[in-house]
């Protein structure tokens, strides 16, 4: 297992992007797994009454992508201490062309970088600026996270 050490990071270090594709199958799975059964996320006619122009991706699914992005990056020895995200822009899922393949279209990317590096009460921390970027390169879901990491100096 690869360990990410606090010393390996600097302010400005970029996190490798995590690509994601939102499609209707994924939204249905998310509804079932999260318990959010709002038809705004699977029924076009209802969605058209909501002033958003169609079925939209759940904010909380994008939040879960970002948490996957940060926890995957920090690795098992890292600890997520704080997290936040705001749903600023709407995202529209791809439709399906087969039972499990979405049509061609938009791909999203979780992106992020280190914006602060410090020691807080003996914990080696970094603050991250993160976000979900849509296919046009617009950040629809900006956020922040604070992660505690192992330090080489602690011999861990």
């Amino acid at each position, binding site marked *: 297992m690869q360990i990410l050490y606090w010393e390996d990071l600097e302010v400005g270090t970029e996190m490798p992007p995590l690509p994601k594709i939102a499609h209707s199958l994924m939204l249905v799975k998310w509804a079932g*797994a999260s318990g959010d059964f709002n038809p705004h996320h699977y029924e076009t006619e209802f969605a058209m009454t909501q002033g958003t122009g169609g079925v939209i991706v759940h904010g909380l699914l994008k939040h879960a992508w970002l948490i996957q992005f940060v*926890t995957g990056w920090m690795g098992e020895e890292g600890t997520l201490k*704080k997290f936040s*995200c705001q749903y600023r822009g709407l995202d529209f899922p791809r439709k399906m062309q087969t039972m499990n393949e979405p049509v061609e279209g938009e791909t999203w990317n979780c992106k992020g970088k280190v914006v602060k590096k410090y020691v807080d009460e003996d914990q080696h921390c970094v603050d991250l600026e993160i976000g979900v970027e849509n296919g046009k390169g617009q950040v629809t879901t900006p956020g922040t996270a604070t992660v505690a990491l192992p330090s080489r100096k602690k011999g861990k």
Partner: protein
Amino acid sequence: MVPDSLKQYIGKVDPPHLREVEKGAIRRYADAVGDDNPLYYDEEYARKSRYGCIIAPPGFFGWAKKTISSSEGLVGLIGAMIEAGYAGILDGGMAYDFYLPVRVGDTIVVSPKVADISLKEGKTKMMILRFEASYTNQNGDLVAKSYQTLIGRQL
């Protein structure tokens, strides 16, 4: 001005409800996200990790023990918001402070509260609802706090 029908909810605390953190629910959640981290499904792998067992992805606190998880206060508030003309409801954002991991088999007590209700005047009027919740495990330890924002738009 926030209408009185909504103002009465500010500061209201919902009765705490219980959530169970089941193995299958964790796996389904991780699968729906597309997260293949073995800590969320591989028992043997997770046992050898520093957690000692399967954990839940941060932000997942299990499923409510009762069939209906929506708390009465929240349902009333959303109803009042729709009644007041803000029927276009969207999630605004989510934030957490995490203190301890959520482990498979945990029972989590969730205590939600309506922290604030405000109006935002821009191109269109929006009602902003802020909720806070604390999550405590079966040992009485605080595992996390959450801060959620909902937005009601005039349609």
